[in-house]
């Protein structure tokens, strides 16, 4: 027993996978608790503890709407980012199919969008997957060329989860609107990290999820601009203006608003801090390890996002070795994906499939310090070297 204590104290825990999820902020947990213990009433009921739950949802909706420059009535609470993407894309496809059956998206979307488009393709919709450049950016010209008289929806993510690259949503959405086409963006990776203003960006729909910004898992929202048609995805009660049936996840919605409130006050300063940390990390890593291919746009990316490929080796082995040192990261290699295919994002960016197998993503967040980066830098070069020496590709 004593030995275990000593052993666990020796191993650090350095979490560098904030694009996967974040630790729920203690202030968020505190804000949520009364809605699990005291005000547990169903918001649809009429007695006073239920009235308090209903008011809490209204207040949360106002906080969140104001953060993205929307009206409260334009926010639909969902269970996650994936549900928001499905709701937006499938709803527009069904409602606009008289006008046309063509949807435009990109080849680097999250699976929540890609697989939803695949699903619609099987139903007879036509989908164009736009290419990206070496930094993972979509070109306005490619988008213009892809538009057809039958195009009903364009869905392009704001920030990419694997490589952090940000798209110029304002330019892309204006092209959609000039052609009378609705525009949706998956902003799951950008909200709370970079400015997200639905009016400035000119989007008709926007998806978000709480757990990427220190909120709880199991809650997301879909912004739907006033006047944009929507069809329910979940059928049942009259919740969310009859657009999303099911008893509201009150505590998580309150937690979501709290996370947004915390982000509102701190994200700009935090973005500067994280950008400085990741710049230091990239510079030092580049010096310490030869043949590292950094992926994504060097500056137009989400703060704290460092993604790279170590040539000649495979990502899962690096990931597991880092895990044995208490460092949590992710990889886009075929071995880490159950699909057994290398990252579709890296391949779309034109990265060689062998190099893509060596991808590792470090996404920094609130609790990370320069000491954490120095700890990673102390161990990572040796790990890469060990696997390169073991690799039959290294000498060739």
């Amino acid at each position, binding site marked *: 027993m004593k030995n275990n204590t000593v052993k666990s104290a020796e191993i650090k825990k350095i979490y560098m996978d904030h694009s996967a999820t974040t630790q729920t902020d203690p202030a968020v947990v505190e804000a949520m608790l009364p809605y699990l213990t005291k005000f547990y009433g169903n918001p649809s009921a009429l007695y006073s503890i239920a009235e308090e739950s209903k008011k809490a949802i209204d207040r949360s909706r106002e906080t969140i709407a104001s953060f993205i420059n929307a009206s409260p009535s334009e926010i639909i609470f969902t269970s996650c980012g994936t549900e928001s993407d499905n709701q937006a894309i499938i709803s527009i496809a069904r409602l606009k199919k008289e006008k046309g059956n063509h949807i435009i998206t990109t080849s680097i979307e999250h699976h929540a969008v890609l697989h939803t488009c695949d699903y619609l393709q099987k139903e007879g919709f036509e989908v164009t997957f736009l290419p990206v450049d070496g930094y993972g950016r979509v070109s306005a010209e490619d988008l213009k060329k892809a538009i057809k008289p039958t195009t009903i929806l364009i869905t392009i993510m704001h920030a990419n989860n694997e490589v952090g690259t940000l798209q110029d949503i304002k330019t892309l959405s204006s092209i959609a609107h000039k052609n009378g086409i609705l525009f949706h963006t998956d902003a799951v990776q950008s909200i709370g990290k970079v400015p997200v203003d639905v009016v400035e960006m000119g989007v008709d729909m926007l998806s978000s999820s709480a757990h990427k910004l220190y909120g709880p898992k199991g809650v997301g929202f879909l912004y739907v601009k006033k006047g944009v048609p929507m069809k329910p995805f979940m059928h049942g009660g009259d919740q969310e203006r009859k657009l999303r049936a099911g008893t509201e996840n009150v505590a998580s919605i309150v937690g979501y608003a709290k996370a947004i409130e915390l982000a509102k006050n701190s994200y700009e300063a935090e973005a500067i801090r994280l950008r400085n940390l990741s710049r230091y990390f990239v510079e030092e890593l580049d010096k310490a390890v030869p043949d590292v291919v950094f992926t994504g746009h060097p500056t137009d990316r989400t703060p704290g996002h460092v993604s790279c490929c170590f040539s*000649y*080796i*495979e990502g*899962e*082995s690096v990931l*597991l*070795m880092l895990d*044995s040192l208490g460092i949590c990261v992710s990889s886009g*290699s*075929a*071995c*880490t994906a*159950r699909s*057994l295919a*290398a990252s579709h994002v890296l391949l779309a960016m034109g990265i060689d*499939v*062998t190099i893509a*197998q060596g991808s590792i993503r470090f996404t920094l967040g609130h609790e990370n310090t320069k000491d954490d980066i120095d700890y990673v830098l102390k161990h990572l070069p040796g790990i890469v070297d060990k696997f390169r*020496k*073991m*690799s*039959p*590709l290294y000498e060739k």
Partner: protein
Amino acid sequence: MYNKKVKDHFMNPRNVGKIKNPDGTGEIGNPKCGDVMHIEIKVEKGIIADVKFQTFGCAAAIASSSMVTEIVKGMTIEEAEKVTNQAVADALEGLPPEKMHCSNLAADALLKAIQEYKEKQK
């Protein structure tokens, strides 16, 4: 995800490297799928006197390469060529199901090395 034995062979792989003037070499896999295994053998009086591997791949690929070298070192050629991928996985006390087909190919790489050795003997 991986059991203790697999982790041990992954963290401390046995017989990594190359052999000077090997009697047989075998390579299997494709970097596109994420795994390449290269095995070299030294044969003395019909016995595998030395065996080394180099592997590009995940923990399962590295552990199965390490395990096959440990199993066959000291075996006769006839014994070694009967070692199957399944036997390697069993010696590792199991691999995750999704890794069985893509990463558990070390015995095939060894067999190629043995075949090359036999060709040279003709």
